[in-house]
Each structure stands twice: as structure tokens, then as C-alpha cells.
């Protein structure tokens, strides 16, 4: 695990500059939460960290993201390599419907050319244990992946992301489509995962950020003709008890957003 440095990052959708000059350091082995009102560019920032933003037509990024001493936007960098080291979990659980549970978990490995059955199975078990779904799904490995409950499907997706062996996991509101019990399970999973992977989680649920994160970043887009900015970034307990910026305080105390 290494720290990840975001340096002077800007992002565009077409002509719309949505992120303006973001600078932050994601610390290795900790959980970093990104909070802010809807449309503040939290997800876009997250997607810039593993080069997923550029997959959107007409989307563009400038600035630097440096992981350890690896410049992720360097000229010779293959984005697929970046994504193997920095995995991603999405808002809506998205298991591959044509694959079984097991095939889903090892999909990343198989599609990158690993075919050894025994090692794939070992990898799947390890990833599913980490994601906390092994006990529930170990007897249903050959069932279709598309027929799980929302919470199980989401933890399956976490297992799928972990199986590739990333040391950082980006989570884009991973529990916002789930019921409270499943949300609780996802949060427990995150707490256990931080032993092995660095986690960056986008959430619009401030209680969730306060519960699970070590550091919190607050983002805000103050008007449509200006890009979103990183307003404040600090230890979570500081952010939620003694924020420096008036806008952070206003957001956290529920005066807008």
C-alpha cells in the first residue's frame, strides 16, 4: 500500500469543467470519505483516481495523480494496469448476469488471462472471505450471479474487485441502494478491509462518513460557472467536531445539501 497524491487535478465533461485544481493526499491503509451535496463532483474525483473518468465520451482530465512513485496519468501508463491496482465498487450492484457467482468473482482475473482453475478458486475464496460473503454464498457458487439480493450482490461485487488483487478500493456510494441491514454489513466489511486495502468512499450520508472513515474530504460546487473545489480535508473527528471552514460547518450541521 502506498499514499496517493492528487496534484492540481482538473476534470471536464465536454466544455464543462467540473473539478478545479484538486489537491489532496489519500493516506495508505486508511479509510477516506468524500462528502458533499449532489452534483459536487465527488464521484468524478473518485473516477479520476483509477482513470475511469476518461471512459465517458468527451471527458478529459489534466493534472497529476501519483500513486507511490507511479504517475497514473504518465504517457506510457496503460489505464487497465491502473485499474488492477486501484479497484472500484459502484453505487448499484452490478454482477455480470451471464455468469455464476464464482465466475463473477474471478471475472477480472479470467478476462486478464489467468485460467488456472485451482488458483482461481483459491483467489475467489480469499476475496469472498474478505468481502464477507463466503459463508453465505459458498454453497451457491454455481448459481447465476444476477439473482442475489441487493446486499449480497454488492458484497459479491466487492469480492470481484478484490480478487484482482488491488491495494486500493474506490467505493462510489456503495450502500446507497441498499437496506439498513445490508448497509451495516457493507460498513463492517469496510472496517475489516482496511487492514489490507486503502479505501476511498464517496457517500452522501454524513453519519456513514463519521462512522467508518478516518479522514474526510468535503467538496462543493458553489455555482454552475465554477468547477467544484475541495473545501476542507482533515481527520474525520476534526471535520465533524471543529471544521475550519464555515461552509463545511454549514453542510455538516445540515443547513444545506
Amino acid at each position, binding site marked *: 500500500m502506498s499514499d496517493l497524491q492528487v496534484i492540481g487535478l482538473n476534470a471536464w465533461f465536454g466544455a464543462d469543467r467540473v473539478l478545479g485544481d484538486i489537491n489532496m493526499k489519500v493516506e495508505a491503509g486508511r479509510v477516506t470519505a468524500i462528502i458533499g451535496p449532489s452534483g459536487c463532483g465527488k464521484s468524478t474525483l473518485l473516477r479520476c483516481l*483509477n482513470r*475511469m473518468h476518461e*471512459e465517458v*465520451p468527451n471527458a478529459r482530465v489534466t493534472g497529476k495523480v501519483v500513486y507511490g512513485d507511479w504517475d497514473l496519468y504518465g504517457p506510457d501508463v496503460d489505464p*487497465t*494496469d*491502473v*485499474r*488492477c491496482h486501484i*479497484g*472500484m465498487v*459502484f453505487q*448499484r450492484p*452490478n454482477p*455480470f*448476469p*451471464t455468469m455464476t457467482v464464482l465466475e463473477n468473482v474471478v*471475472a*477480472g482475473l479470467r*478476462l*486478464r488471462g489467468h485460467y488456472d482453475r485451482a488458483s482461481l478458486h483459491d483467489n475467489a475464496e480469499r476475496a469472498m472471505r474478505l468481502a464477507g460473503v463466503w459463508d453465505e454464498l459458498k454453497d451457491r457458487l454455481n448459481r*447465476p450471479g*444476477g*439473482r442475489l439480493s441487493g446486499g449480497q450482490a454488492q458484497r459479491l*461485487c466487492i469480492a*470481484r*474487485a478484490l480478487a*484482482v488483487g488491488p491495494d486500493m478500493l474506490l467505493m462510489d456510494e456503495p450502500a446507497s441502494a441498499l437496506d439498513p441491514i445490508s448497509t451495516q454489513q457493507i460498513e463492517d466489511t469496510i472496517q475489516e478491509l482496511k487492514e489490507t486495502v486503502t479505501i476511498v468512499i464517496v457517500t452522501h450520508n454524513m453519519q456513514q462518513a463519521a462512522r467508518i472513515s478516518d479522514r474526510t474530504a468535503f467538496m462543493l460546487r458553489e455555482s454552475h460557472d465554477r468547477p467544484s473545489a475541495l473545501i476542507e480535508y482533515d481527520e474525520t473527528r476534526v471535520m465533524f467536531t471543529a471544521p475550519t471552514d464555515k461552509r463545511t460547518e454549514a453542510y455538516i450541521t445540515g443547513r444545506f445539501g
Partner: protein
Amino acid sequence: MTARKAASTLFMGALWVAGLVAVIPLVLIVYYVLLKGLPAVHVGFFTQTAPPPGVPGGGMSQAMWGTGLIVGMATLISVPLGVLTAVYLSEFGRGRLAVGVRFVAEILLSTPSIVAGAFIWALVVVAMHSFSALAGAIALTVLMWPIITRATEETLRLVPDELREAALALGVPRWKMVLRIVIPTAGSGILTAVMLAVARGFGETAPILLTSLGNDFLNTNPLQPTDAVPLRIYNYAQSAFPAWQTLAWGGAITLLGAVLVLSIGARLLSDRQQRRLG
């Protein structure tokens, strides 16, 4: 409340009537074709070739084999072509080239089939100095390619973007994501598109007439004139001999049966996929 109920009953009734009106022609066609054609359908119908004028009996085996040969070759050409075009349009195509390709497919989709026949006649038959099954297959490709392309593109677009993103986020290259995630997920839709196109190919008469000509005898050489079922129906239906007219009706049964089997097959496959995707 009663007014609402009355309106609901009224519209429900109207919908039933509309549904019945849509079904009536189909029922009549099937009934009439069976009535007229069943006398022609016996073992000889599938094993014998065209009878001489005025002689009873005979069959259409040469036309069935010919249709199989022509439509088979057309399918072999148009399926890869159509699916690849659709993948390009849905997954990679941006900008002017994609707009152009989509426009061409749309124009071809509404091109009268006889135009496709005349075009391939001028292009292939004249150049090769011979009518042939191959020319027929190419003419059918002109009709089948846009059907497969448009229908497949629609299905590919129904695949949720979340699945594409999930695959990309695992570090899977784009082409592999398309090949291993998008296409399998769209699988039954693509098959349905292919079956639609094949069904269209079975029934086309005009392009075959101008390119493959027809043949009273069984021919398996793709470079020779070859018979086809719709062509035989066209010829026999206008003839003065009752035996030939009965054979034409028999041919109609064969075509209806083939299209029915294809449609049911497509339906079963897509149902199975639907259940699997649950």
C-alpha cells in the same frame, strides 16, 4: 366511479377488437394455405424434383435444397458482417463514420428488395456471366445485413452501462469487455435478430429471381443457377396446370413452417435467456 368503470370497459373492449382484427388475417392465411396446400404435401414433395408440365406428382426438393444453400450462404456472410457492424456502432463508433454507417444501414433497410436484386445482377451476375446461388446469397446479404445490424445494435444498447463499467474497472481491456461481457449479455437478442433476418431471406423472391434464376433440377454448385422455394411458388402459381398450382401451395406451407420454426426458436431462446438473467 361508474363512469370510470364504463370507460375502462369500453377501452378494454376496443383493445380486444383491435387485437382480434390483427389476428384474423393471420388465421385466414394459415387456414387457406393449409386447405390448398396439404394435398401437395407427401413424401414425394420433399424428395422429388419438378415434374414436367401436366404430369401429376413431383416435388420441390430442388427448391428446398436451393433455398437452404442460398440462405445458408447469405447467413454465413451477413451474420458476422452485421454483428460486427452493430458492435462497432454501439461500442466504438463515434463521429461522422458511425453516423454514415448507420445512415447506410437505414437506407438499405428500406430499399425495395428488387433493387437489391437488380444491383447484384449488374454487379455479380453480369461480371461472372452466370446466374448463381452465390449471386443470390449476395443479394440476400444486402437485405439481411441491415436487419441484423440495426436489431443487434438495439440489443447491445440495452446492455446496462453498469456492466461495461464494472468490467473496465476490473482492468479489462475494452475489446475484451465487449467480447466477453456485452455480447454474451445481449446473446438472445442477437440470435433473435439473426432469426428475423433468416426468415426474411427465406421469403424473398425478387432478388433471387434476378440473381439465381431458378433450376428444375437439384443443384449444389454455388456458381450455377439454383432454385428456391419462393421462386418456385411464383412460377407455379401463375401456371395453367392444377398440379403445379397445388405444388405452389405446398411450397407456401413449407415457407410458413420454416418461418414458424424460426420464430418459435427465437422466442424459446430469448425466454431462456430472460429466465437466466432473472
